[in-house]
């Protein structure tokens, strides 16, 4: 069998997560229309986006339940990429 390990989400979990993602998306779309939130719009949207990203990676892509090595490989890629492009854009004073 190709299942990775003992803890394994069920279809029910997947449906619930999908629902949570849909709700989060709806909230995200509403945020730019709420003037009150203008000063915190960017951090809020980035936080939501990051949360959705991590959720899909951890649950749908199974990374939470899988071998640690996969997490390290992907995690190092994400961290280096983010830092690298922040540095690059800073040189352009574009950030």
């Amino acid at each position, binding site marked *: 069998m190709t299942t990775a390990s003992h803890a394994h989400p069920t279809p029910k979990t997947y449906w619930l*997560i999908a629902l949570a993602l849909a709700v989060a998306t709806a909230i995200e779309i509403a945020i730019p229309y709420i003037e009150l939130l203008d000063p915190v719009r960017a951090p809020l949207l980035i936080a939501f986006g990051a949360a959705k990203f991590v959720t*899909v990676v951890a649950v749908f*892509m199974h990374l939470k339940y899988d071998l640690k090595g996969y997490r390290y490989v992907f995690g190092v890629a994400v961290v280096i990429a983010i830092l690298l492009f922040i540095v690059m854009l800073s040189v352009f004073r574009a950030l």
Partner: protein
Amino acid sequence: MATATDGIFEVDGQTDFEADGDPIHRTRKTAMWVFLGSEVFFFGAMIATFLLYRHTTNGGPGAEIFNIPFTSATSFVLLMSSLTMVLADNAFQKSDQRQGRIWLVGTALLGLAFLAGQIFEFTEFVHEGLTISTSPFGSSFYMLTGFHGIHVAGGVLMIAMLVAFSLRSRLSPDHGMNVELVALYWHFVDIVWIVIFTIVYLLQI
């Protein structure tokens, strides 16, 4: 039979490959995650380019051209395709090929719907004066979303191949194409869109 592994590529401290199904699967999954690591840099560079040029509109249209409600709908469609994909993978793991095929077809259809939405959106933008040669903003927007679309199309093609192989009873965990690996690719393409949707469409800073 013991196989060699080192801490981080071991399962629960066991080195016996039976604990994680077959070692070939572990090798393939490692390769897929490494490949996805490279794709992080590919899309990262295009997103960085877009961020550099987000205001460089050369007198042409800028972010005001976006139709947030429409793109929200297509984004939702792609997000849900991750659900159908993980359900497909789940079905194949339980050896229910028929159920798996149904969810795979669903995923492919949602993916095609997303692509149709992209094409519609692009034709609208072209009519409104934003092309790849209008401005650096235009070039970087179309390059980023265009390559993303190509990746989605590639994913749909792979899903089609999985369905075909399954119908000919040539889909099994050990050889031929691997549903779990295609699923990883598909989810990745989805999360890239989550990032693009947030940074390009919603943030508009």
